[in-house]
């Protein structure tokens, strides 16, 4: 456990020692802020109309605004996540520091978990900054907080899937550009895999829908924590980490 923390701490430190963490956090909150503004304006307009036509204050912030906002956030994540993981392994391999890690009394799992937790911590920091926007909502409006928690949990889990996949891809190459691009392509595929299902038979569609990483996010965005989706995300993360472990191990044998 101590070793995992040491590795995670080192990862997090290296994110913040380079501009990468600041760029990611800045970029992410900028894009999030943009969507936040757009959705808030749309919501204000809609609720005004509802007031005029005698809706009687029935406009629901959670349903009408936050759900859409979260769904768009999922798309932003898709674009930013490769930048977090692309260097994790590839940079260590390129600079030779991987030799230090692999000859230290650490298990592969400790190294992998440390790196994963470090990446998740940076991602969590990114999400944390977006909560400032949510504070504005609480200040001017009256949203339900429970669906928000569900939404953030969903974002965290979905991001975890991306991060574990990215970690695996990074462990395959010495070149962080290659790692970044492959990761992005993979994420994109995982995102749009259900588009393929639209035109095919019901069984194929169900299978592809189930595989699509964003499909499982819908319920979270709506404020529902369904164990089905939690299990999907957790097993996806585990699978990504498992692949990373296999990749590191096979690299060792091939030399």
């Amino acid at each position, binding site marked *: 456990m101590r070793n995992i923390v040491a590795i995670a701490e080192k990862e997090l430190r290296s994110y913040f020692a380079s501009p990468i963490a600041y760029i990611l956090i800045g970029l992410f909150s900028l894009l999030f802020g943009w969507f936040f503004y757009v959705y808030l304006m749309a919501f204000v307009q809609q609720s005004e109309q509802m007031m005029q036509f005698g809706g009687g204050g029935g406009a629901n912030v959670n349903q009408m605004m936050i759900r859409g906002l979260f769904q768009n956030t999922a798309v932003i994540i898709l674009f930013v996540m490769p930048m977090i993981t692309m260097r994790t392994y590839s940079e260590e391999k390129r600079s030779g520091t991987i*030799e230090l890690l*692999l000859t230290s009394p650490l298990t592969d799992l400790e190294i992998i978990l440390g790196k994963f937790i470090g990446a998740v911590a940076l991602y969590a920091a990114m999400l944390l900054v977006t909560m400032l926007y949510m504070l504005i909502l609480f200040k001017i409006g009256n949203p339900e907080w429970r669906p928000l928690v569900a939404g953030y949990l969903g974002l965290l889990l979905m991001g975890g899937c991306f991060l574990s996949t990215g970690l695996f891809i990074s462990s395959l190459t010495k070149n962080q550009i290659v790692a970044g691009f492959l990761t992005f392509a993979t994420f994109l595929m995982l995102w749009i895999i259900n588009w393929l299902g639209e035109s095919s038979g019901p069984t194929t569609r169900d299978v592809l829908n189930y595989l699509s990483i964003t499909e499982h996010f819908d319920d979270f965005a709506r404020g529902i924590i369904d164990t089905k989706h939690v299990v999907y995300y957790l097993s996806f993360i585990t699978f990504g980490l498992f692949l990373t472990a296999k990749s590191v191990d096979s690299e060792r044998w091939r030399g």
Partner: protein
Amino acid sequence: MIEVQHITKQYGRVTAVDDVSFRVERGEILGFLGPNGAGKTTTMRILTGYMPATEGRAVVAGYDVFTHPIEAKRRTGYLPETPPLYPDMTTREYLDFVAKIKGVPAKERKPRVETVMERTRIADMADRHCSKLSKGYRQRVGLAQALIHNPDVLILDEPTAGLDPKQIIETRDLIRSLAGDHTIVLSTHILPEVAQTCQRVVIINKGRVVAVDTPDNLTARLKGAATLYLQVDAPAADAGAALAAVRGVTRVTSADQPRLAGVPDAIPPVSSGPLAFEVESEPDVDVRRDLARVVVTRGWGLLELRPVRMSLEDVFLQVTTEEVPEEAPRA
């Protein structure tokens, strides 16, 4: 302390290390000598648990590096060929991190980092980022990193590479002072380095151990055939034969036409300019005086006479064609 038994490592079809065996006793400094690509780094990587051997067994500090990697690694310090530094950490932060992952208890970490920095003379760079360090400092931070958890065994892959002469001497002194408490294996392709630092030498070539000996025995063996470089202003036809006739001389080769001749009359009578020869003599016979006398009495000009230093290639030529230790049977 270290026992390597019949280790073989194959990368695909390439055999990098082929049936290597040796032992290192506690407190000893073992030199690992060989040209680039001989399998030194691969052997060291196997010893440190970085990669497993295809065949064979390595025991470090009482633990098999394959079946008990964590225990073995806890007792091993390793300086790879390129010091594994994180550019965005300062020297102190870096050593603190290494101490953490090497399992130094939290309370001892701080004093340990300071001691090691003192010992490797990098304290003045404690707050400098690793990316801003000179090659010499990087190498020493790498050494500090290997020492941080006070390991029983130190594996150093070319610890003096890239250092200036003064730093090389300091580093050798440091390594010598570490022996006794630590068992050290260091690799190098510099022959004098081995003679100055190591108690025993393993010579490896093309993945095979070709000799295991003390530096003294090794140099004695090398002295076996002393070679002199000789340049004379003489008629080509006579010179070779005259030199070969000197008592104690075993072989005269024209240095102008390398490998052309093993016998004097094979030297072609070409230009009348100065001729260069390589003269080999019997061990323990100093033929320099006699050679000079022969040249002078014939009225030739003696332009140059100097001993030829054994290059590493010569060492290999010699040890591979002479006796081979029992541990490594010839192919």
